[in-house]
């Protein structure tokens, strides 16, 4: 079964690429809008160095935003999730802030923070923060009460309760949040770069689109997608390693 699945996946990708190439060569699609895969490959070789530099720029900002999201999200989620009054008061606000599209405040953020890395990092952080916060809050609320009682009966201090019981108990949710948050952070950074960037992959892609450079645009899109998928797969791998006790 697995072999057939892999074969089918590979065959489908090759067939799609082949059909695409054929259609472009035969002139069924306008190469101005849909360039052939070979043209994309050639464009990739041409823009390679510059594209990688732009990708590094984007990923750098994403990394900062991501670290901020994870640290703030886990810390705030632990505190809000474990204090009942805070949790009950703040929960609807957090859910609302998670749900509403942050794109609406993007113009204002750019207005206040200007162009450059700061708005990208800020916007990326508010994108990544909320999924992590929501998951961690829920996870802390749902920690098995017996474990908390056991820790109390063994004389755990507040610090020990957080460090030795609550934090390890929510590791699976933190990891799930980290996976979601990463994609959200990258999305936030790219949106800012597209809206008001002067550097980075989002800016580069917008510039290619506005300049009708389809092969370069497709190459850049493929590069960002591949990077994103690779990072998420790496996180999944880490997740499996860290959660061996779950079985």
């Amino acid at each position, binding site marked *: 079964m697995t072999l057939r699945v892999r074969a089918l996946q590979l065959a489908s990708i090759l067939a799609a690429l082949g059909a695409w190439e054929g259609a472009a060569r035969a002139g069924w699609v306008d190469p101005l809008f849909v360039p052939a895969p070979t043209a994309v490959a050639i464009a990739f070789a041409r823009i390679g160095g510059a594209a990688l530099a732009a990708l590094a720029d984007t990923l750098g900002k994403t990394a900062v935003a991501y670290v901020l999201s994870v640290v703030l999200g886990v810390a705030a989620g632990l505190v809000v999730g474990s204090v009942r009054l805070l949790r009950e008061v703040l929960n609807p606000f957090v859910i609302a802030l998670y749900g509403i599209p942050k794109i609406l405040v993007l113009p204002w953020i750019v207005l206040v923070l200007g162009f450059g890395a700061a708005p990208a990092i800020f916007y990326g952080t508010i994108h990544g923060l909320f999924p992590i916060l929501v998951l961690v809050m829920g996870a802390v609320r749902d920690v*098995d009460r*017996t*474990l908390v*009682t*056991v*820790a*109390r*009966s*063994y*004389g*755990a*201090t507040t610090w*020990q309760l957080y460090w*030795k*019981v609550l934090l*390890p*108990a929510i*590791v699976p949710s933190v990891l799930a949040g980290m996976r979601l948050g990463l994609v959200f952070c990258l999305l936030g950074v790219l949106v800012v770069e597209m809206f008001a960037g002067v550097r980075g992959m989002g800016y580069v892609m917008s510039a290619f689109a506005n300049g009708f450079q389809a092969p370069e645009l497709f190459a850049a899109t493929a590069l960002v997608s591949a990077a994103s998928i690779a990072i998420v797969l790496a996180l999944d791998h880490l997740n499996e390693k860290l959660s*061996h*006790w*779950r*079985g």
Partner: protein
Amino acid sequence: MTASPRIIAIENVTKRYLTSSGPVEALHEVSLAVGEGEFCTLIGPSGCGKSTLLGMLGGLVPLDSGRVLVDGQPVTGPDPRRVATVFQDAGLFPWRTTLENVEFGLELQGVPAERRRGVATELLGPLGLRGFAGKYPRELSGGMKQRVAIGRALAIDTKILLMDEPFGALDEQTRLLMGEWLLDIWRRTKKTVIFVTHSLQEALLLSTRIAVMTARPGRIKSVLEVGMDYPRLMESGELVALRAKLWSEIREESLRAMGGRL
């Protein structure tokens, strides 16, 4: 009464809980004294406040009035240097191995890693878990999990062991074996055990004394001395007679707890 000095004194303890349908009195003027080295069982119908009483001894439940003294000192909160508790749900930390779970209490007390590892490893033998040091809770059977939980309590080496229906979730055969095993541990360590159970048989096989509690609000209805030697046989005439006596005491309360129907 036993000649041994009293290690636990519960004096006129009352406890009310606030529920959505008004206050409920869980315990009413309960008094009980337990001597050092005793195996004292609390038994009674569901909701009679056995677990509440145990929670008070462990410092987990505050009391409304009365006094609870452990070792002559009033209980003000959890005190893992005097009292260790085992819960019905083993409450093992799923991210810790057997050994790490047994070490938990010592770790909280700041015992150096090497020493607590030594204590925990030595305990694995009597716990019957020697080959399972590195296993996670999900890899253990129900009986094994409960032995790890008991190991965790034994590791901090308190004089008093509180056990809240520790075998309640196990099947009957495992339960009998765990009882035999616990008796062995108790006789070797000479700890004072306060044991909560629903099972008459378990109470009769294990206890030196059995305190029968009434339906809510819980009071101590009567205290049975079981002076027989261990190991006991359920079929012995003495125990059969005691069982009948115990059941007649409890039956009435269980009926009341069910609302007098049947």
